[in-house]
């Protein structure tokens, strides 16, 4: 009864630290044009529903969904906004197609972070206004706390986290769309200032601008319009405790639950064997390692050894963030999941250029909404229908 769903088109514009030549509407328009061309469709004729992913405070506009339809060709169509991560938007499109209501849905996510005067101040507004904000702490202090606990539990060092940054910045050199591609040594990265001990400034993904549009279609339509549909095999998403005072600090339970949901749908019993590569959250370098543990791709006892062996490099046993991740591409905030999905699609189609992996079949994409949330989403993609 419920149809399979595939990604049939991707388009993006960016990514760069600033985008002085374009407004957010123009960035979205350019990305949409490319995605519709990739899917070989006309938005006005073929796309039945649209989803935008955005948050008012980042946009500097209340009720931002007002400004979403025109540049996508969505005027007078069923369109809504998901105030979540781009993966939440993609999952919503997936659910709508599975329901049988629509055959083609387009999802848009973007970042115009260069317009935001103080991202730290905006993030501060995400803290509980009664119990947390009066304490007047820098929100990234929360990441420092979490990193401290991770280092204690996993026996990893600050230098191990620097080596994750080194890997992702290096990977970004093979990605022409990445905003922060550098060859930096672990030592150079470890010499940065501490922002919230033990979190170094160099361990934090820097903001970037860009827009991404992804087109999804039902199995029947996907096979008609593209030779290379990328199948969504499983999705999972989960929230944990919003209050800082009640959450588990030693593990990412919400990532564990979301992964379990996605693995169960995609019949993945042994993720490290059944999945070929992953594009996952790395807004903070330590999060990549912590998330790998929560996703069941490593455990707390082995993660340090795997990092040191280079297991997560493109030529390693399990490539992670081949695109450069958020550290290399840039932090696109709620659009991060869309960027990671685009990378998975390019790799699975075999058109990722200089960074193409050797014949991957199954990819894992995961993202997180950042401080202070416990909101995550996971998606398993494959170039094989069955």
């Amino acid at each position, binding site marked *: 009864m419920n149809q399979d769903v595939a990604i049939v088109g991707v388009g993006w514009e960016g990514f760069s630290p600033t985008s002085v030549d374009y407004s957010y509407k123009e960035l979205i328009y350019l990305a949409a044009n490319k995605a519709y061309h990739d899917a070989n469709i006309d938005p006005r004729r073929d796309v039945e529903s649209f989803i935008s992913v955005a948050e008012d405070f980042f946009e*500097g506009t209340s009720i931002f969904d*007002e400004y979403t339809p025109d540049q996508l060709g969505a005027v007078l169509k069923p369109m809504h906004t998901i105030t979540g991560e781009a993966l939440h938007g993609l999952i919503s499109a997936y659910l709508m197609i599975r329901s049988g209501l629509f055959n083609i849905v387009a999802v848009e996510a973007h970042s115009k972070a260069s317009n935001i005067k103080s991202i730290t101040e905006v993030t501060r507004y995400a803290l509980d206004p009664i119990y947390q904000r009066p304490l007047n702490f820098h929100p990234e202090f929360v990441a420092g706390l979490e990193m401290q606990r991770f280092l204690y539990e996993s026996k990893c060092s600050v230098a191990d986290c620097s080596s994750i940054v080194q890997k992702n910045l290096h990977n970004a050199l093979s990605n022409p769309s990445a905003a922060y591609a550098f060859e930096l040594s672990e030592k150079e990265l470890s010499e940065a200032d501490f922002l919230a001990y033990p979190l170094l400034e160099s361990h934090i993904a820097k903001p970037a601008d860009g827009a991404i549009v992804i087109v999804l279609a039902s199995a029947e339509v996907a096979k008609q319009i593209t030779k290379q549909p990328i199948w969504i095999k499983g999705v999972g998403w*989960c929230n944990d405790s919003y209050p800082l005072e009640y959450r588990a600090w030693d593990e990412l339970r919400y990532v564990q639950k979301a992964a379990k949901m996605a693995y169960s749908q995609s019949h993945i019993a042994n993720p490290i064997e059944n999945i070929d590569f992953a594009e996952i959250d790395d807004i903070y370098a330590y999060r990549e390692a912590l998330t790998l543990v929560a996703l069941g791709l490593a455990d707390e006892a082995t993660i340090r050894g795997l990092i040191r062996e280079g297991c997560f490099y493109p030529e390693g046993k399990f490539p992670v963030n081949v695109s450069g991740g958020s550290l290399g591409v840039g932090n696109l905030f709620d659009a991060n999941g869309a960027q990671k999905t685009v990378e998975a699609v390019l790799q699975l189609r075999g058109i990722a250029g200089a960074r193409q992996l050797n014949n991957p079949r199954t990819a894992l994409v995961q993202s997180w909404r950042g401080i202070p949330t416990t909101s995550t989403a996971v998606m398993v993609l494959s170039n094989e229908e069955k």
Partner: protein
Amino acid sequence: MGLRKVAVVGAGMTQFVRRAQETPRELVFKAVRAALDSCELSIKDIDAVCLGTAPDTFDGVHMNGEYLSDGAGAFGKPYIRSYVGGGTGVFVPIQGWYHVASGLFDLVLVVAEEKMSSYYPHAQGAFLTIFDHTTERPLKPNLLWIFALEMNRYMSTYGITKEEIAQVSVLHKRNAADHPAALLGDKNITVKDVLDSEVLAWPVQRLDVSPVSDGAVAIILASEHVARRITDKPIWIEGVGWSLDTAYWTNRDLAYPRYVEVAARMAYEMAGIKEPRKEIHIAEPYDPFDYKALHHIEGLQLADRGKAIELYLSGSARRDGNLPICPSGGLLGVGNPIAAAGLMKIAELFWQLRGEADKRQVAGSPQKGIAQAWGDLMQVGTVVIMGK
């Protein structure tokens, strides 16, 4: 198309008030508790949670969906917040519908919240930042001002008078006197009271407008086989529709909401409704202003253009009339905590179709009802059709 059937099996709401003592998280908790109790479920039974709340500026919290998550019962569960401005309250049940219809979930909790009183000194301030930052914000427009434009256009296009439009406010506020959660119910209000109230932006007067309010509403959606285990009286979601018009509202025909028509036609087609004026027995159109109820009744194809007022003048719109309109008391009477107000309309249809609306119960045995909300820059229509 063979869509999976989805039913509403429970509903609950908080009191709608001007200044709630509860925090936003406590408001959603109360509504969720009431909805779960109404169908004797526990939060452990719920598979996923959908949340609707309008601009973050009201609660003054960035990523407000995350802030409300634990109050809304989303701890350890799949949870997504959707958003179409003022239309959110009738969109969030559509979001819940596609969660269940996808086949992934059997029991989904749908929650809507708004706490407008936190915005100091007045919630209208939050609307100053909804306009285009380059072309409109320098003119410093506010919402009352642009709706005054629309009301004027509607009145002059069809030759409708202020006295006639005031009848809408009077009926809704009188209806609300029977709603236990209402903020502005008034059994004795008259047309003269409306016409004598303070002018805000001509032709909009204070009693033409719904109040700034705080409140939360929750409903529970279930797949067919689960719904039949929970209740003997499931109320089915038979049609859903939504449509978003261009952001360039200044180019729009303000006399007629075509986006509501597009959304309504989508919902009617899904529900198999060919003649809405005969097949719909209760309507809960969105009524943040009295003229908007008329506007929306026409968009929903329940009256010809410019003729919706006749339903009020003839008595058809009353609870004992042919097409009861806003038997709940609507936003004008029950209150307008934006997203929660829309979901309140869905809860009202649920209670009316089950025959559980107490003093508000409409006459006869209604089989189908329609709820609609509207929002953004006079731009979005969201429609849900429910049936026994």
